[in-house]
């Protein structure tokens, strides 16, 4: 089984978000970048499937050279090889075209990714890739088993879940509790250095959106404290002052 896992390079979850003074760019100074946490669920599940059933795991990242430390980290966690498509991922359709092209070229059985990146929060790429490739997408997937040429997935729906059998190949966008992310061990880190990382050029640069500027949400005006002894007072304030009850 050949598995492709798409990973994004995103600011660490503890990052305080700021922008350049003109509001046009995310301010990356002093920011540590990590593998998108949702993508780690996809990556770990892919490695588990490979360990159980054989095959290979390729990671793909659409990004410029500064993403390579996190691609190496994915290799250290257990992927076999990597592809980096050398273009800044500024638009979901732009990214999806790259993934669809290289996924078709590689003939993968499973294309896994996180449900969304924690920076752009699009939750779009899974469906766009599926549509561009003409194959089914399951999103968001919380469980994935493969039996021969068919996968059984659990898909989260509002208020429950569905169990679906789908013939391979397919695209799945993953979220917890898909798998427990792993920390790379020393042997993984050593072998990752020599695993193949192929840099390829983008195929088409068409984008459908263009970010004009970023803004931070307005700061809260301050918290009104209520004495614990009179906690019931809170309910009255929520009804009469905040008018939310």
């Amino acid at each position: 089984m050949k598995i492709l896992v798409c990973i994004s390079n995103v600011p660490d979850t503890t990052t305080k978000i700021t922008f350049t003074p003109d509001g046009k760019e995310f301010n990356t100074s002093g920011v540590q970048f990590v593998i998108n946490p949702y993508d780690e669920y996809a990556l770990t599940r892919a490695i588990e499937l490979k360990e159980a059933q054989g095959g290979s795991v390729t990671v793909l990242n659409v990004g410029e050279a500064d993403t390579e430390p996190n691609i190496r980290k994915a290799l250290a966690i257990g992927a076999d090889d990597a592809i980096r498509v050398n273009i800044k991922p500024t638009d979901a359709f732009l990214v999806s075209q790259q993934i669809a092209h290289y996924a078709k070229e590689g003939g993968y059985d499973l294309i896994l990714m996180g449900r969304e990146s924690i920076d752009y929060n699009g939750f779009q790429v899974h469906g766009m890739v599926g549509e561009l490739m003409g194959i089914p997408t399951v999103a968001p997937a919380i469980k994935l088993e493969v039996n021969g040429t068919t996968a059984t997935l659990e898909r989260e729906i509002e208020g429950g879940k569905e169990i679906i059998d789908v013939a391979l190949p397919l695209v799945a966008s993953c979220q917890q509790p898909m798998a427990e992310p792993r920390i790379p061990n020393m042997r993984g880190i050593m072998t990752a250095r020599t695993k193949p990382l192929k840099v390829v050029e983008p195929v088409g640069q068409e984008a459908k959106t263009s970010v004009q500027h970023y803004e931070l949400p307005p700061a809260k005006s301050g918290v009104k404290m209520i004495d614990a002894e009179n906690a019931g007072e809170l309910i009255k304030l929520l009804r009469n002052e905040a008018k939310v009850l």
Partner: protein
Amino acid sequence: MSVLVVIECANGEVKKSSLEAASYGSKVASTLGTTATAVAIGDVQPGALTGLGAQGISKVLLDNDTRLHNFVGSAYVKVIAKAAAQENSNVIVLSNSNIGAAIGSRLAVQLGASLATNVVALPEISGATFTVRRGVFSGKAFSNVELTADKKIIAVKKNAIEIEEAAGGTATVENFSADLSDADFATAPKETIKQSGDILLTEADLVVSGGRGLKGPENWHLIEDLAKALGAATACSKPVADVGWRPHHEHVGQTGITVSPNLYIAVGISGAIQHLAGVNSSKVIVVINKDPEAPFFKAADYGIVGDAMEVVPKLIEAAKAL
């Protein structure tokens, strides 16, 4: 040209998030000088759809193929694509739900459309430029994005737009069929497991959420009782889901569910930046924590410093007395 709104239905009713999408769509339509039509899919009767008139919708297309009662991506996309073609729609409005994301992303490729998800405000339309504001960085910021393609698909975030309460016109319901074949249902679920009777977290106006300050699953009834007294949904922090006190689908935060209710009550949650990301678009935030230095107080509108075991029963009592 027209605006098409996708209406999600469940248990015979229109989902609240779809009423919001309808209100959004008809406001966009009036800015563009056109009308908004809705297409309804799912388990619903025509009578439940006429009320969409209050949101400014004049006509609702209803495909009542019972195979559509469960979500099947390829079939849903086909229905909406056909409705969009019939109505000559250049703007399609969806809810920012799992269904909305699944439909919107495939439809965007089929139609060559620009897609914006997680949209929190009405668009700025000036001449040919069409810009929407959407939540990014997991709720820590907004980005103003121009949708550059001729066709635009917008997925509206829950609670980002007011529903019109005034009794407006009545929408007419027209039967509509996309002539679906069995092949369109190839990825139909073989089984659907629904949670029993709870208020849907993603649809809830009021949310009561608990963290490790509850000390153990044996105290979880405090969260449930307060939620019941208020008519709220329950949620939890990531550590609580990770240790298995509560299921993962209740975990609110950066890698869990993002909620934007009118009221979010956090009990025994310190307010790590990852948790705040999932809740900070809530209208009113209440924080109850025994640590006066808990970072969550800085993001709160109302706060109580105290032990959950002592404070929550008082709140339950006061809520029951409302």
